[in-house]
C-alpha cells in the first residue's frame, strides 16, 4: 500500500505559531526553553506521527536544550516543521540533523532578535508611549500595546511561514544581505532615538545660583529718575519688548550657563559615565541605587 504524503496544513501551522507564543513558559536553568519548544510542536507531532514509538522519539528529540530570543524562534520552528514533515514522509533525516539545525540557527538569530526587538523596537515604542503617558494621555499605553503586538504577531507568523517554505535552505540565507541590512538599519535608528531620549528625558537640574552678571551698557533699560512722560514710557515699553533687561544685573545660574552650551549636556555625561561603569562590570542595580542616594545627597546640600 502506498502511503499518502502527510502534509501540515495552514491551520496546523497556525496552531504551532499560536503555541510558540508560550515558548518561555517553563523556562528552566537546565534546558531553558525546551518544554515550551516541545509544547509548540505538539500539534505537528500529533499530525505527522501516528505510532507511539514515532511520537515518543519526536517528543524526546524536541525536549533537548533550546534557547533563543522568543520571536526569532519562529523561523527555526518553520524550518523544523519542514524537516519533520519530510522525515515523516520517509526522507532520511536523523535526529542529529534536526538538532543541528536548531542549535545552528538559535545563536545567530538570537544575535538579531535581541538588538532588534529588545534594544530598538521596544525602547522606541516604549519611549513614544511613555512620553505621551507622562502627560496623562491614554493613547500612550494603547499605542505601545497595539503597535507592539501587530509587529510581533506579524513577525512570528510570516517568519515561521518563511522558514517552513525555505526549509533548510534558510540557514544559508541567514548570512545574506537582507538580515544584515535590517540589523544595521535598526541600530542606526536605535542610536539616533537613544540620543534623543538622553537629551529629552535624563533630567539633571542644578539649583546653584552664581553671582549675578553686570550687563553691558545698552543691554538693559535706563529708567529716568524723574517723572515719565508718555513718549518716554512708550520708549521704555518698546525696549522691554525687544528683550532688554529691566535691571542692571542679570541673574546667573549654573544651569543657565550649562544650557547655553547645549541643553542636556549633564545628562549625556551621566549616560557616558553609566556606559563606562557597565563596561567595568558594575551592576545596573548598584548604579540605580547609587543614583538615588546621590539625588538625596544633592537635595540635602541644595545643589539640585
Amino acid at each position: 500500500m502506498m502511503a499518502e504524503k502527510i502534509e501540515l496544513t495552514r491551520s496546523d501551522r497556525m496552531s504551532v505559531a499560536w503555541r510558540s507564543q508560550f515558548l518561555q513558559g517553563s523556562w528552566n536553568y537546565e534546558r531553558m526553553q525546551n518544554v515550551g519548544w516541545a509544547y509548540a510542536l505538539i500539534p505537528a507531532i500529533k499530525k505527522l506521527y501516528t505510532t507511539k514509538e514515532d511520537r515518543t522519539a519526536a517528543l524526546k528529540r524536541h525536549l533537548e536544550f533550546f534557547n533563543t530570543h522568543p520571536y526569532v524562534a519562529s523561523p527555526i520552528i518553520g524550518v523544523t516543521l519542514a524537516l519533520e514533515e519530510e522525515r515523516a514522509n520517509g526522507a532520511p533525516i536523523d535526529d542529529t540533523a534536526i538538532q543541528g539545525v536548531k542549535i545552528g540557527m538559535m545563536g545567530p538569530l538570537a544575535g538579531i532578535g535581541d538588538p532588534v526587538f529588545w534594544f530598538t523596537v521596544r525602547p522606541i515604542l516604549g519611549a513614544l508611549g511613555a512620553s505621551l503617558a507622562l502627560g496623562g494621555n491614554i493613547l500612550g499605553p494603547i499605542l505601545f500595546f497595539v503597535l507592539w503586538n501587530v509587529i510581533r504577531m506579524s513577525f512570528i507568523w510570516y517568519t515561521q511561514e518563511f522558514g517552513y517554505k525555505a526549509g533548510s535552505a534558510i540557514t544559508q540565507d541567514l548570512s545574506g544581505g537582507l538580515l544584515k541590512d535590517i540589523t544595521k538599519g535598526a541600530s542606526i535608528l536605535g542610536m539616533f532615538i537613544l540620543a534623543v531620549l538622553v537629551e529629552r528625558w535624563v533630567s539633571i537640574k542644578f539649583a546653584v545660583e552664581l553671582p549675578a552678571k553686570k550687563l553691558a551698557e545698552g543691554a538693559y533699560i535706563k529708567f529716568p529718575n524723574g517723572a515719565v512722560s508718555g513718549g518716554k514710557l512708550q520708549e521704555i515699553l518698546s525696549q522691554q519688548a525687544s528683550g532688554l533687561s529691566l535691571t542692571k544685573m542679570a541673574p546667573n545660574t549654573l544651569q543657565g550657563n550649562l544650557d547655553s552650551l547645549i541643553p542636556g549636556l549633564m545628562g549625556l555625561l551621566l549616560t557616558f559615565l553609566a556606559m563606562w561603569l557597565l563596561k567595568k562590570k558594575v551592576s545596573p542595580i548598584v548604579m540605580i541605587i547609587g543614583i538615588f542616594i546621590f539625588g538625596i545627597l544633592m537635595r540635602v546640600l541644595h545643589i539640585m
Partner: protein
Amino acid sequence: MSIIAMILVVIIAFFAGMEGILDEFQIHQPLVSATLIGLVTGHLTAGIVLGGSLQMIALGWANIGAAVAPDIALASVASAIIMVKGNNFSTSGIGVAVASAIPLAVAGLFLTMIVRTISVGLTHGADAAAKEGKYQTIERLHLVGILLQGLRIAIPAALLIAVPASAVQNALGAMPDWLTGGMTIGGGMVVAVGYALVINMMATREVWPFFAIGFALAAVSQLTLIALGAIGVALALIYLNLSKMGGNGGGGSNGGGSGDPVGDILNQY
C-alpha cells in the same frame, strides 16, 4: 479599594507575572500594567503617568540569554498598588511610587530565579512523559510552569493589598521632604542607566555619528518624538542605500576596532 477592584488587581498581577517570563504581549511592561491597575481602581490618569515614568526607567531592561533583568512586572504592579493605597496622586506621590519600584525590581529577581529552578523539575517530568508518548502530560506540565510564573507576581500583590491602607499611608507620610525630593531628583537621572545599557549593546564606530545628530536635533524642542522618529528612519534608509552604492568595498562591515556588539551577544548563547 473595593473587593472587585482588589480581585481585578490580583488578576492583572497574575497576567503580568506570566508575561514577565513569556515576554510576548508586554502586559508586564509598566506602561500597560500600571495603566490597567489605575483603570480598575479608578485612578486611570495617575496609573498612566506612573506607567510612563517607570517605562522610561525600564526601557533597556531585557532578559538576554540566561541572564535575568530586574523584575519589571513585580516593580510596576507593586508600585501601582502602593500609589493607590498611599492615596497621593500628585507628582511627589507618583515619584515615591517610582522610587519604591526599584528595590521591588531587585527583590523580584530572586522570585524569578526560584521559579526557574523549580521548572527544572517540570523538565524531568516532561522527559518521563515523553518516554510514554504522553503529550498531554507535557502540555499540562508546561501550563503549570506558566501558572507558577503568574503566581510569582499575584501572591506578592495580594499580600500587599492585604496590608491596611493606613499603614501604607503612614509609612509614606513619615517620609521627610528631603527624602521624597531627593528621590524625585534621582528618578530624573536614573533613566540614564537604562539608556547606557542599550547604547553599549548597539554602539559601533559606524553608528555613533547618528547618535550625535540625534542629540543635537533633540535640543530643538519644537520637534516632537514622532517627527524625530521620521528623521531617524529616513537617515537609516539613506545610509543603507548610499553604502550599497559605494560598492562592496566601502559599505560592508567596517564596524572596525570598536567591537562588534552582535558578537558579544552570540558569546552568551
